[in-house]
């Protein structure tokens, strides 16, 4: 493969420094440290127990089915987003992104409300919740990529006599294959390592490796056994990564397209019907559980009442937790987006830096419990006694957000044809100017998406290593979980009101970011 313009630049290697240092400092070193100090070999015998084998089997099959279900629901709406232009489109994209942001405790509570009693504590409830969490995320990533497929490719194929189905299978699917596999891998990993939803919806007899790790370390104090399971978890996910990357075929087609939109207006009635059905069903899926939460927040003692809302909005402690969470989200965006951009760039500009991809995936591969415990035993002496620092929580959030944010940026950067840069370079631009005028303009929208994902991870604190990090003030998910787990009708309603407030904030965050990203791209087009 010929070197890209940037690869010839020695300085480009420096891009990888910060991401490497970040992950090394906050994942590799702490986990290595806790393994070194706490792992005992006799704990390996737990791998032989039937209980553990059952847990591994259940974790794997529920993750596979959840992933397939998420993609099946994501693909139609991704197709609509990428190929058609209509008025409420942005609204729809924003709405389906909301579930991804919600904390697992809120989603768990919502599904307990929505599902009939006979579905509680079933694998079905768990898989449904996993699908709910991830379908919007998958649809966005796939849709964004689809949008970039040059419409002329389709036209050319059609002119050569290809049927719409042939166009789809021979062009669209081929070009989308990589991004579909990529998002499948992320969704699989998230479902495989899921913790909160499993605890709430799976019932007491269903545990995943992650809940088993937690149970061993926290309930029994068996840190060593927990670490063995944590290593097992890494092994299984690594196998999944290897399987998927071995089926990947690299694509030489240059499909980048920033000038011509493939989005068409809807003109046929049949199209209109199909599109409305897909949109309505996706929105209903995203909104029904949310509405159940709103409903609960407005009902006190079987009567309609706004008491809980008034109480929550006038309670300074509750409002403080809201401000705390928003503050952490801002810092998380700054850290995660910066490092993700650097990591994605070094991946795109220097083909020798593949390891960055594996390294930055570590935070979601390695069990949150191991990272959290590792951080506690590693940063414990001055001047590195950071255990109590305000920065630890957003760093933990950023770690989890990082692999997701990178995956939002890398594919876009990868597809910028080097000829564009060469042209600009020939015209006399230096590397920095080339980057600013070509790469940055194209990648801007992806950066915004990465920021949105980071905000989501931080606000929802989902599956995060953060739950072992000491908090100096209560965050929103913690307050919600506290209110929901106390007896008393008023406190319950307040918990739901607060959950609704978090949902509203998540929606606002998504809308603001989406709005911002679309104005930007219009400017760059002008």
């Amino acid at each position: 493969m010929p070197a890209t313009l940037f690869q010839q630049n020695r300085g480009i290697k420096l891009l990888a420094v910060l991401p490497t240092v970040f992950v090394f400092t906050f994942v590799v070193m702490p986990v290595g440290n806790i393994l070194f100090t706490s792992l005992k070999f006799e704990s390996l015998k737990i791998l032989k127990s039937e209980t553990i084998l059952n847990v591994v089997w259940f974790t794997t099959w529920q993750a596979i089915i959840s992933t397939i279900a998420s993609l099946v629901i994501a693909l139609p709406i991704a197709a609509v987003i990428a190929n058609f232009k209509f008025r409420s489109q942005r609204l729809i994209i924003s709405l389906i992104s909301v579930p991804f942001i919600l904390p697992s405790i809120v989603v768990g509570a919502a599904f307990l409300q929505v599902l009939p009693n006979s579905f509680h504590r079933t694998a079905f409830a768990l898989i449904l919740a996993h699908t709910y969490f991830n379908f919007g995320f998958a649809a966005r990533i796939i849709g964004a990529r689809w949008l970039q497929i040059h419409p002329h490719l389709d036209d050319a194929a059609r002119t050569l006599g290809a049927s719409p189905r042939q166009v789809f299978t021979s062009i669209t699917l081929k070009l989308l294959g990589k991004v579909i596999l990529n998002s499948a891998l992320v969704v699989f990993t998230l479902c495989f390592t899921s913790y909160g939803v499993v605890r709430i919806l799976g019932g007491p007899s269903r545990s995943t490796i992650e809940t088993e790790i937690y149970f061993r370390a926290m309930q029994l104090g068996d840190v060593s056994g927990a670490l063995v399971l944590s290593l097992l978890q890494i092994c299984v996910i690594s196998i999944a990564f290897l399987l998927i990357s071995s089926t990947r075929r690299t694509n030489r087609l240059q499909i980048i397209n920033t000038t011509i939109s493939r989005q068409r207006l809807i003109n046929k009635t049949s199209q209109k019907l199909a599109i409305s059905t897909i949109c309505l069903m996706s929105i209903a899926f995203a909104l029904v559980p949310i509405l159940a939460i709103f409903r609960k927040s407005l009902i006190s003692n079987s009567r309609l009442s706004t008491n809980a809302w008034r109480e929550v909005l006038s309670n300074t402690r509750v409002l403080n937790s809201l401000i705390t969470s928003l503050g952490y989200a801002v810092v998380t965006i700054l850290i995660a987006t910066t490092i993700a951009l650097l990591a994605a760039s070094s991946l795109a500009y220097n083909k020798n830096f593949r390891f960055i991809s594996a390294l930055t995936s570590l935070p979601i591969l390695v069990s949150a419990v191991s990272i959290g415990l590792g951080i506690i035993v590693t940063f414990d002496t001055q001047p590195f006694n950071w255990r109590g620092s305000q920065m630890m929580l957003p760093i933990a959030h950023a770690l989890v957000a990082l692999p997701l944010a990178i995956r939002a940026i890398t594919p876009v950067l990868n597809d910028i044809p080097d000829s564009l840069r060469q042209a600009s370079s020939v015209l006399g631009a230096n590397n920095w100017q080339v980057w600013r005028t070509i790469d940055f303009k194209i990648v801007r929208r992806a950066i915004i998406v990465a920021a949105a994902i980071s905000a989501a991870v931080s606000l929802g604190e989902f599956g995060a290593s953060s739950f072992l990090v000491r908090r100096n003030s209560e965050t929103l998910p913690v307050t919600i979980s506290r209110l929901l787990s106390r007896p008393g009708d008023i406190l319950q309603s307040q918990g739901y009101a607060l959950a609704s407030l978090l949902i509203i904030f998540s929606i606002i965050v998504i809308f603001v970011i989406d709005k911002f990203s679309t104005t930007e791209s219009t400017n760059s087009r002008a």
Partner: protein
Amino acid sequence: MKSTRLRQILIAISTITLITAATSCSSSSTTDVQDSTQDAEDLANPESDTNPVTLTLLAYDSFTPTPNIFDDFTAQTGIKVNIALGGDAGELVTKAALTAGNPEADVLWGVDNTLISRALAAKIFAPYESKNLANLDPAARKLVPNFEVTPVDTGDVCINYDVNWFAQRKIAPPLTLRALTSSNYANLLVVPSPVSSSPGLAFMLATIAEFGEDGWDEYWKALKQNGALVVGDWTEAYYTEFSGSSGKGERPIVVSYGSSPPAEMIFASPRPATAPTAVASLTCFRQVEFAGILRGTKHESEAKLLIDYLTDLKFQEDLPLTLFVYPANVNAKLPDDFVKYSLRPESPLQLDPELISRSLLIWLDEFTNIMLR
């Protein structure tokens, strides 16, 4: 263990990261909600003598005393208190065990009698005899004869039942653990799992205390025969399956706290004429919570003052309506509503913490085999 070279590399790496952290921190003023100045001082110069001492009180996530409750303490002693939350009680003990001797905080709130033995084995605490010790619940004090920790509150996990459900059907509610296996109460009980829930664990221990290490498994087999439902956590048991809460579930008997009935009254609007739920007092397992000074703290003498404050009347009397527990200090006055609606069992079930720590894994495995397979 760590070579000097490794440490140099570590320092170099960390410095770079610190710079990044600092820049990203200063560029967003929104994060500095509170304690920001104090935090910066912590980072810059943790042991500065010119500043007043700030103690960090590490507690479980549901630690919610009245917000300015430590103002009096600061006024009396000049010591500030920073509350840090660190997950549930099990997480606190696991983390404290890993950092024993070089703790994350100065004082730990919330180790209970199901965890205390593990905590003591890990030598987490520096012993201290509080000046209030003589006023604290004698039974609770007996659990820690060497004063590693100080009892701060007690509570009970008991069978709760839906008063109206039984009244309407003219059935007598269950009063003992044994009664729950009777066909009168078939398919009526819901229990949070001891594997994932602390009241669930307390209830399993109650059955072991009642029926002995040899008889408790037979009891659970009988409960299973009788249609007892095990769910993941307390919230689901109480709010989704139990008929006496706002969730309006289908089962009128649930494992919950002795203080749940007053909470149902105090946090209801409008307040019902009679309490909708009640407690079967012979089924209660006593939970005792402790606070202790973390061994290795740089502020041990100040931490002692904080332990005294936590067991003083002002703080103790704040507990019933904020944490729904009974003060450990026997002289503390209880709020009227609390006394009126809660039932304090005279001889709650108890188990030796040492025995709990030794056998917990075996018991939980046994429970899983009987109930969850």
